[in-house]
């Protein structure tokens, strides 16, 4: 079918076409000569375009996967991360060769895969100053905008110089059906710039040379696998949603609501089916409810619904507005994955590689188009991945790649998850301040109701005093049996894990991985450029699952904790002190702790004082710590190892 990365049928390009091109160039030159003076604004515009194309060309990657074909890619960071299509790299395997317009060939390693969205992230090796393209806000792209593609059509770029094809944006927010459950193009850009086999994975740029999408698909029909003026690009905003997960070496899944929608007789989009196990159901969504908006985007058609959903990663929480009997409800819904991890793994593993020297796949036979009545899906042909991951192949990985590749189930390349996890861990550690605070952490203050509370966290237990009574959790054992205090879903367990994460880092905590980026505030969807994304760590520790979202400067701003897989999590928001209180509370300490469980707010805790007890021998050196933090870190680690039983001393951490 219509994969774009194999040009076999086009190696026999008649020379007449080249001659025709030359004639056209001459004609253009002739036209110019007779045009006389050209307005400087026109020349400026031309220069701007040339510059934009030069910048884009520098960031364009020509991917060569030997027998398996190849395609295009585009660099998005100076340390060599490049986006491309899943269907381009899948036949290539873990290691590939990538050419840049500088004429050099680089080793590259596979980092992350998103089969559902047909996206892959690779990393070019050997430099930290690669030219790269800036991701634009693709929601700002308008039909009629100038755009151009830079890529490797027909694998012509044997000298690594990309081909440029220019055009206009023909359509925005297009939906193109998946092949089965993968290679879905949702909310994508449609262009009339020539997108040919081999352009797959290459960048689509705006007039200023900013990346607005990644080309990957085209409508082909009876004319064979050659551009007919209809190409599709994955939008930059979708790519941005997944970039964190991909950088984390993950095998990424897309989101499903656990409910399907259909157009009702009167033209509304209503819930036609819903799983009772879905979060949407638990939050109150029911059959026949009208979906008004999802993730901040108004939903007027089924396509619009699929467009929004198709750009979101599994696991995100998004606002959903629905209407029932004239009443408008807004809920936050946690999105499930389209696939199980086993399904994703088998998709990536693919079919066995055909024996070398076997018959080549038949050239570009146009196939009868798939028709889905009313779906609007005409002769569009989805790219089709073939052939397996080369990781298990007989060819050994190049040394440069071997050192940055680690196979692990559920991941594309676990090496990069460790890299990202360690980066975030360094941020969270905040120069080791917390590592030293080995005694009890005591937070006191008032609830929103005006009543007092006291929270005490230590290595051995967590205690909370509430107007309703005192609750304890043993911190040394498993935490899953005790979702205390009652009604919170596990608030004490969440705070105990938080303390351990701050003090010890992610590794001693349990099995912790980098979970990509996630919206800082799920209610902020719909803003220009999408929601603000922050790093997330996922931990499996002490019998519970926890997610920590990490805000600016490494402060943990959110914790979600599941004591059982199907239970609603305890959701803790840690709100930093406003600037005038920053002096009062240590960096990274919350001024407000907001706890939610299920559909309810459990409590809002206004922290007025935070006290950190330290062992007596540490307390004596408190002043030193202020001046010699670096030295102190070393000392503290020694202290911890040496003696945990020292008598308590007080380190006043704040007070109002």
């Amino acid at each position, binding site marked *: 079918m219509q994969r774009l990365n194999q040009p076999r049928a086009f190696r026999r390009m008649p020379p007449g076409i080249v001659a025709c091109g030359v*004639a*056209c160039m001459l*004609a*253009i030159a*002739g*036209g*110019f000569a*007779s*045009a006389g003076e*050209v*307005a*400087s*604004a*026109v*020349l*400026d*515009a*031309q220069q*701007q*375009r040339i510059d934009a194309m030069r910048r884009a060309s520098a960031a364009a990657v020509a991917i060569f996967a030997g027998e398996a074909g190849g395609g295009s890619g585009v660099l998005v960071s100076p340390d060599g991360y490049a986006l491309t299509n899943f269907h381009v790299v899948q036949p290539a395997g873990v290691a590939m060769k990538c050419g840049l317009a500088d004429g050099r060939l680089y080793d590259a390693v596979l980092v992350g895969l998103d089969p559902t969205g047909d996206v892959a992230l690779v990393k070019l090796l050997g430099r930290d100053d690669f030219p790269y393209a800036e991701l634009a806000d693709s929601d700002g792209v*308008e*039909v*009629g*905008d*100038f755009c151009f593609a830079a890529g490797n059509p027909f694998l012509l770029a044997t000298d690594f110089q990309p081909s440029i094809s*220019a*055009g*206009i*944006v*023909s*359509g925005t*927010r*297009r939906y*193109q059906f998946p092949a089965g459950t993968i290679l879905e193009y949702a909310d994508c850009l*449609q262009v*009339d710039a020539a997108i040919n086999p081999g352009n797959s994975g290459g960048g689509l740029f705006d*007039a200023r040379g900013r990346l607005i999408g990644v080309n990957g698909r085209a*409508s082909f*029909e*009876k*004319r064979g696998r050659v*551009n*007919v*003026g*209809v190409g599709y690009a994955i939008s930059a905003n979708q790519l941005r949603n997944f970039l964190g997960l991909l950088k984390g070496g993950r095998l990424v899944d897309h989101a499903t609501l656990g409910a399907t929608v259909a157009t009702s007789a009167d*033209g509304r989009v209503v819930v036609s089916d819903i799983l009772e196990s879905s979060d949407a159901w638990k939050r109150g969504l029911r059959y026949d409810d009208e979906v008004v908006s999802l993730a901040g985007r108004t939903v*007027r*058609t089924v*396509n619009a619904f699929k467009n929004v959903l198709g750009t979101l990663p599994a696991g995100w929480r998004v606002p959903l507005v629905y209407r029932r009997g004239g009443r408008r409800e807004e809920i936050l819904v946690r999105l499930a994955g389209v696939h199980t991890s086993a399904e994703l793994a088998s998709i990536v593993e693919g079919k066995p590689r055909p024996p070398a020297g076997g018959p080549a796949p038949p050239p570009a036979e146009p196939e*009868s*188009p798939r*028709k889905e*009545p*009313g*779906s*609007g*899906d*005409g*002769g*569009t042909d989805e790219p089709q991945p073939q052939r397996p991951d080369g990781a298990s192949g007989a060819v050994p990985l190049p040394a440069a790649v071997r050192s940055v590749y680690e196979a692990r189930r559920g991941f594309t390349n676990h090496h990069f998850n460790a890299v990202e996890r360690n980066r975030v861990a360094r941020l969270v550690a905040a120069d080791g301040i917390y590592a030293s605070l080995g005694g009890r952490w005591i937070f006191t203050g008032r609830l929103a109701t005006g009543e007092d509370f006291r929270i005490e966290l230590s290595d051995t237990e967590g205690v909370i005093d509430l107007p309703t009574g005192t609750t304890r959790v043993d911190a040394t054992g498993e935490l899953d049996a005790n979702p205390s205090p009652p009604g919170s879903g596990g608030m004490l367990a969440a705070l105990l894990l938080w303390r351990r994460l701050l003090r010890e880092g992610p590794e001693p905590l349990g099995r912790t991985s980098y979970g990509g980026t996630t919206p800082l505030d799920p209610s902020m969807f719909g803003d220009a450029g999408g929601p603000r994304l922050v790093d997330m760590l996922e931990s499996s520790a002490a019998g519970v699952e926890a997610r920590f979202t990490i805000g600016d400067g490494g402060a943990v701003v959110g914790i979600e904790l599941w004591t059982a897989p199907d239970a609603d999590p305890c959701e803790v928001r840690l709100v930093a002190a406003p600037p005038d209180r920053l002096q009062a509370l240590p960096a990274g300490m919350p001024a407000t702790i907001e706890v939610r469980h299920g559909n309810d707010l459990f409590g809002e805790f206004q922290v007025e004082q935070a006290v950190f007890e330290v062992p007596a021998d540490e307390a004596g050196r408190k002043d030193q710590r202020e001046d010699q933090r670096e030295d102190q870190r070393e000392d503290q680690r020694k202290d911890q190892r040496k003696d945990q039983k020292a008598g308590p001393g007080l380190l006043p951490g704040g007070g109002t």
Partner: protein
Amino acid sequence: MKRLDALKLCGAAAVIGLLVWSGVLPVGLSAGRAEAASPQETIAGAARKVVKIHGAGGVRGLEAYQTGILVSPTGHIVTVMSTVLDADELDCVLDDGRRYRATMVGVDPRRELAVLSIEGEDLPAFALSTSDPVPPGTRIFALSNLFGVAVGDERVSAQHGVVSALVPLEARRGSYEVPYRGGVYILDCTTNNPGSPGGAVVDWRGRLIGMLGKELRASGSGIWLNYALPAESLASGYAEIVSGTAAAGGDMPADGLSGPGFDPTVLGVVLVPDLLDRTPPFIETVAADSPAARAGLRPDDLVIAVGGRSVASRAAVQQALSAVAEGDAVTLSVVRGGAILECDLGPRPAAGRKR
């Protein structure tokens, strides 16, 4: 040499087009012209006058959708006459997602033009121009629902290009030579795709200059054509259809219409749509009180000979009928229920021929 000049002009126009195109129109060029619309605005304005048509099809190689152009605020839509329109229920979806049931006003079989009507008021519509053709080198946008990518309130697709030439159409579809021999604009962008027929071609000021036709190959080279019926021809065809003068059997306009085609509907015979390379010439319907009805023809009869000469396909029937001189007797041999029947349809009328 003339051809070379045109090519040069065309190339130069394309280059200038690219140059001035980037959000900001250079002041030097726009000065003196009042508020030239941006390409984005031009496309958005024109797209409001283009409709998505859903009808019959969805089987092997035949789309069930095409495009149409609103040409009157009260809901007249011009489009391409095709098998898509051969449906009991025709849906037209406007740019804003409003959905209408359309009725057929009439067809112009030679230009393969159809006019539909929806019940609307104050609809956005193009003015059909009878002015002179635009010169080669004119920059255009083509708006159509190619590949049916746009559904509901989604906007039809926009493509950009240049008018390369205005030439007589010499094209075929399968083995069937297209009867229309009038002038068409050849476009330098890949406009004519599944679903494109009936799409609007506008200039950079948003004026309608043509309508995209069916997917056709050039008779000589076999190359897929990207072309549009000029607005002038569209205007005449539209006028004839709404005034009833283009009805089957009426006079045909002389603007380049000639060729081997003979429309058997003149005799009251409607054959099955010509979908295959050799579509068997079954009769689909027989018009009441027509020569065919009087001769005893019935739906599902298979035509096997015209005037004693055997015919193996629908195209062959058309050709054989065209070969019968005006006024000569038309006889059809048909198979019905295993028996061969001879039917005399009387003298061949003039219709379907050049006036």
